[in-house]
């Protein structure tokens, strides 16, 4: 079985020249295209489906609460404000105010936070080449919370309404680089190193938060306690106006670098051989992660595990390609946080569960399961 030299044009050789074990081209060519062509529309369908689900969940969430408003009325109120005379207006007393002063900012912030967390998780996992990386797990959220708490306690307001977000960004980016520097060896990040680094960072951040609580007054203590539990109760249009630009920049960067992140999965050197400036890519990705985490943490505190569980579920459905993973994780994260917040504030009458507690109750066991699976796959603590 001799392979002959192909013509200079390098066209796929005719069947007569191929080894006998390979069927002729006409027979296998359609089969070859299965992954690209059959799964392509399914992936777009996934993104479309998630977008529809997000809109539905938002309409539902905005209508639920002490003043019940039907989804149709929610949509009607929105359309009227946009200048479209369509759909019913809220019939309940104070319905319009409940929507525009309380619920819409809250649902909007939930969308921003969820999209940020989902994307930050996917980005971080891509950069570390490790499916267990997540802002909450490896301590970046706590680092950002320390930054935000320090800003609250010290009373610094150099950037006005942006101060808390800026401090959270600073805390987040410092922590991310620290974790990155500490947990990498020979261009790889071992699972055990990453998780233990997260333990250390979370412990340090917890101690710093405790110290800040000790140094501050009752109001400060309450504010910091709120960080640690995570809640959307403080949502205002002001918060939205700060978090949204951070999130949008982070999401845009994630979309731009998605294809290069795919190549990073091959490892540092092969990605470089394919023309990727890996150092610059990591720098960009880490900055974007910190920006996203800051936008998620600045007004809501630590909402953990969304960035871990959502990208993982998306990968199971659509594969690991980042060009689908990024938008799908953003949409999926938003759906989860809007839904989680809805449950948090309506599950118990006249009381509100902290959202961070709720996501941790679900996400903690999921993380445990992921750890077990990773361990089983690499045959030990690879």
């Amino acid at each position, binding site marked *: 079985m001799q392979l002959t030299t192909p013509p200079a044009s*390098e066209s796929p050789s005719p069947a007569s020249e191929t080894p006998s074990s390979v069927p002729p081209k006409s027979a296998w060519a359609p089969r*070859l*295209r299965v*992954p690209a062509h059959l799964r392509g529309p399914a992936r777009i369908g996934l993104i479309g489906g998630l977008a529809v689900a997000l809109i539905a969940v938002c309409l539902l969430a905005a209508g639920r609460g002490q003043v019940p408003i039907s989804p149709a009325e929610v949509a009607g109120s929105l359309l009227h404000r946009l200048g479209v005379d369509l759909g019913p207006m809220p019939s309940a007393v104070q319905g319009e105010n409940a929507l525009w002063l309380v619920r819409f900012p809250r649902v909007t912030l939930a969308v921003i936070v969820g999209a940020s967390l989902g994307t930050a998780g996917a980005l971080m996992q891509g950069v570390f080449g490790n499916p267990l990386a997540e802002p909450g797990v490896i301590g970046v959220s706590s680092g950002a919370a320390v930054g935000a708490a320090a800003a609250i306690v010290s009373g610094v307001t150099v950037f006005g309404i942006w101060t808390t977000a800026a401090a959270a960004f600073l805390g987040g980016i410092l922590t991310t680089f620290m974790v990155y520097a500490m947990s990498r060896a020979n261009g790889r990040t071992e699972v055990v190193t990453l998780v233990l680094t997260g333990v250390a960072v979370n412990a340090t951040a917890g101690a710093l938060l405790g110290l800040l609580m000790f140094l501050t007054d009752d109001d400060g203590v309450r504010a910091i306690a709120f960080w640690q539990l995570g809640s959307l109760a403080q949502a205002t249009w002001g918060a939205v106006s700060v978090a949204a630009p951070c999130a949008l920049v982070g999401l845009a960067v994630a979309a731009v670098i998605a294809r290069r992140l795919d190549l990073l*999965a091959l490892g540092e050197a*092969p990605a*470089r051989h*394919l023309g990727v400036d890996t150092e610059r890519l990591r720098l960009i990705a880490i900055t974007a992660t910190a920006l996203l985490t800051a936008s998620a943490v600045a007004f809501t505190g630590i909402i953990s595990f969304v960035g871990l569980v959502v990208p993982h579920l998306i990968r199971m459905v659509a*594969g690991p390609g980042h060009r689908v993973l990024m938008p799908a994780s953003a949409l999926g994260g938003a759906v989860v946080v809007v839904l989680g917040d809805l449950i948090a504030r309506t599950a118990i009458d006249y009381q509100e569960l902290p959202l961070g507690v709720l996501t941790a109750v679900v996400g903690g066991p999921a993380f445990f399961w992921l750890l077990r699976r990773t361990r089983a796959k690499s045959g030990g603590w690879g």
Partner: protein
Amino acid sequence: MKATGIEVTLGGRKVVDGVDLHADPGEVVALVGPNGAGKSTLLAALSGDLPTGGRIEIGGRDLRSYKRIDLARQRAVLPQKSALSFPFTVGEVIRMGRAPWAGRPEAAEDDEAVTEAMLRTEVTAFATRPFQALSGGEQARVALARVLAQRTPVLLLDEPTAALDLRHQELVLQVARERSRAGASVIVVLHDLGLAAAYADRVYVLAAGRVRAQGPPAHIFTEDLLTDVYHHEVEVLPHPRTGTPLVIPRRR
């Protein structure tokens, strides 16, 4: 591809010391030598991975003057080991080899290049399977397919046959030769001297970071040289039918 006076210092030790090397279009050049001779380090230097003394030219231009993306259109590198962090399918992994051509007219060849690379390395049947579910030898062929799909005029292959069975070792080196005959320069690190003798147009015998000899394997593979370089007595016999040198360690 042409390199003169290559020096690489790792951990205070000169691992590659004054190597001159060239590989012309149409040529398969093998780097052979004992463990620690500096073969892989030399290949990494040629890839542009290491701070290197001396001068390396690809297509008549200094390696350092290339932008990373332009370099990726000139040369493809097959690493000794291939890892993957996420469960991409075989087809997706091979398609990654086309990344340097995104947004260029050559991107129109993407499907054809991927298809051809799969066919040549006999991995077509695995196209939809996750890379990580394959055996070591199958993964090695997929990694080679990714490198072939890149369609560059220079190919640098670090031990492409290490994990492969006999049939696939032959297949891989046939593909390497085929690529060279189509106009590529192929530099390949090999441990198996028999394979080097059969498929390389020229070999460089490296020892302790220096070139001990270079030229067509039939001239270079002598009992004296190989015995000296490998610190083990070696017999070289001509193949009774083809005359290609057969290299055999002397055994009792």
